[in-house]
């Protein structure tokens, strides 16, 4: 790989990466809502069955409508991704398909179950008993979470490949179970599942908090806010703990990714934690950051004097793009911290036996945090995906060696971008109409 690559190849590789990144960034919104929203609608329906409170039934129906729109777009954009794995990265799939296809197959079944029971939940209310209807919703919520876990297992394997041996460049001794149980799987799945509940819970809570600011007396919105916070608050409080687990894993398994996340150029003992700042890859230093002495060593290894490896440890060719990873990581952690603080405030308010809806500052904070969880999810995926570059399978296969030989990839990238911008705009508009119909 010594010769400088052909410029048209560079632009094809960039187009393929951009298309995959854009497709993932689009789909993840629907996937996250597909995990969180079914739980909300099931909780509302359960509440209705227990209390026969009509507002809860109304809520379950409205959330189900939102879930129907989001699930349809999520289903088709997920199909696009399953094809794009081959359309863009056929050399990755030719090698990895056998090793890590297993969780995709299981995800297929989870997705199947989700689609079947969502159909029953959305359109079968008048055809089955209320208990069977609630059970159908519960199956949707569980299978939605399961399908997300299976897909994240595949991504975890790309970060921490396991379950095969490389002998002279050839893959042998494939063990799909060991690949599924790769060392990154637990921390990544935990982090993503909690993120989905936190993001959806806060987004829905934020929407209804905003409506309560305008219409403080609405029992409907108070109800919605309570259920959304019931899901969002515990998730937002647990997420920093799972983030700590993830970061400590990345420090050991992908030290270069951690170094990019933290803007750590030099290998040093007692490395500082940098808050904010701008990593200058040319000058090999991170400027304008607030530095907390020994903070990074303490967080990454739970030891203030631990040695943290810097980017300088590896050849420049093996660096990921540093500033996008560092900035995305700051955004994710910053938003997660704000959400955890808001969650703590909700707990305090509840312990003081006051309604959250009674505190306008809290309603304002929740309103402002409406998109926070989704933005944090996007930023988190930027960290893990850009941070793994230049590898598509960490240490095994480089992204540039996986891309399709077909030229002109800027054309499908442009096409899919325009298509998704249109779909995204229409979906947002339709959801806004659904929300507007409640006030």
């Amino acid at each position: 790989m010594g010769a400088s690559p052909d410029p048209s190849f560079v632009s094809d590789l960039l187009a393929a990466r951009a298309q995959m990144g854009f497709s993932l960034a689009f789909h993840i919104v629907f996937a996250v809502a597909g995990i969180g929203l079914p739980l909300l609608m099931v909780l509302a329906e359960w509440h209705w069955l227990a209390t026969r409170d009509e507002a809860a039934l109304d809520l379950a129906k409205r959330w189900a409508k939102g879930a129907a729109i989001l699930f349809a777009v999520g289903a088709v954009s997920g199909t696009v991704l399953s094809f794009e794995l081959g359309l863009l990265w056929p050399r990755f799939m030719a090698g990895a398909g056998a090793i890590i296809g297993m969780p995709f197959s299981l995800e297929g079944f989870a997705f199947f179950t989700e689609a079947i029971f969502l159909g029953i939940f959305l359109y079968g209310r008048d055809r089955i008993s209320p208990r069977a209807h609630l059970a159908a919703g519960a199956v949707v919520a569980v299978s939605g979470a399961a399908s997300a876990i299976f897909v994240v297992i595949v991504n975890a394997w790309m970060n921490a490949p396991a379950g095969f041996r490389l002998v002279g460049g050839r893959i042998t001794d494939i063990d799909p179970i060991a690949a599924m149980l790769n060392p990154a799987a637990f921390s990544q799945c935990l982090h993503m599942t909690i993120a989905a509940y936190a993001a959806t819970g806060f987004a829905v809570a934020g929407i209804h908090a905003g409506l309560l600011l305008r219409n403080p007396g609405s029992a409907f919105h108070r109800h919605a806010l309570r259920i959304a916070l019931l899901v969002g608050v515990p998730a937002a409080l647990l997420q920093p703990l799972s983030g700590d687990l993830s970061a400590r894993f990345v420090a050991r398994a992908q030290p270069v990714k951690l170094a990019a996340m933290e803007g750590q150029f030099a290998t040093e003992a007692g490395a500082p934690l940098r808050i904010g700042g701008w990593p200058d890859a040319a000058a090999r230093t991170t400027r304008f950051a607030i530095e907390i002495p020994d903070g990074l060593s303490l967080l990454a290894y739970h030891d203030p004097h631990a040695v943290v490896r810097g980017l300088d440890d590896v050849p420049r060719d093996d660096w990921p793009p540093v500033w996008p990873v560092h900035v995305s990581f700051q955004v994710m952690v910053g938003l997660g911290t704000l959400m955890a603080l808001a969650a703590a405030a909700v707990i305090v308010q509840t312990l003081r036996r006051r309604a959250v809806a009674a505190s306008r500052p809290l309603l304002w904070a929740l309103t402002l945090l409406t998109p926070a969880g989704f933005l944090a999810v996007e930023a988190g995926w930027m960290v893990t995906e850009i941070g793994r570059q230049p590898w598509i399978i960490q240490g095994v296969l480089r992204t540039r060696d996986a891309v399709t030989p077909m030229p002109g990839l800027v054309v499908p990238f442009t096409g899919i971008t325009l298509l998704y911008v249109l779909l995204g705009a229409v979906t947002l508009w339709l959801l806004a109409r659904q929300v507007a119909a409640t006030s």
Partner: protein
Amino acid sequence: MSLLLPDVVALAIMLALTIYALMGGADFGGGVWDLFARGPRAEAQRRLIADALTPIWEANHVWLVFVIVVLFTCFPPAFARLAIVLHVPLALMLVGIVLRGAAFTFRAYDPGGDVVQRRWGRVFSVASVVTPVLLGIVVGAVASERVVPPSGSFADGYIRPWLTPFALSVGALALALFAFLAAVYLTLETTDASLADDFRRRALLAGAAVAAAALLALAFSGEAAPRVRAGLTTDAWAVPLHLNALAAYAVTLWALWRRRFTLARLGAGAVTVLVLWGWALAQYPYLVPPDLDIASAAAPPIVLKLVLIAVLCGGLILIPSLWYLFRVFKRAPARETTG
């Protein structure tokens, strides 16, 4: 036994593809009849199609995802080859899949009134016509042994393999077959006799189109797909297959004529199954002829075994769930309650 394992997995993929054609194919066919809704009952036709599709199309769609996922897990080189050479038709098919599904949902939930709903309806129905054609083109390209490692110009490597009269005729066959299935199924979805008759007429029309497209594909296959052509004409199973297909086709048309719609539904399904399996048998043991066969493209036995176990366990959940879905929506009439 381990030699047989790849065949069993290929069989599972073919089964899933067959169910996708029977279920998902009919959903696309429904979109075709939405586009061609005509006459005094045009709106009622559209409503019937929408009601028939709404609760089940997403579940039906997953069969395609299943096919792709098992293909790339169990036969990775075949998947990689298809994805490289057939990038253009597959990408266009994806656009069709996305627009069909999204527009169908947007139409149902868009409160924007008649004009906006009609616009989404148009997107849904046009995408429903284009997508099956592309699916057929992909199958036709595979059958014609042109999905080989690309060389030469862009057109040589990425366009000529699939832009052939034969592949286009298979595209037309897929479209006609899906429209035929949908029209036949829809005759049973309504209690309104005149509406059922609308779709009976459409089914007869589509039946004629199926025959025309099949003959066209057969005519082109001599030069374009010699292996499949030879299998379909000279193999021991060829004559019984054709006789059965002809019999099923004749029974379906007769049943439509006599308004025996349940029998017609079975017959149309049988025609579709026989067309698909005729192709599969003629191409066996090749996944992507001329070079990638089932044995050489297969992943190691451990992978195939685990996937088969997963498919069996998954089936234990899936089949009762699907049975429940169809029982809820395709048998019992809705109780007369509101909301």
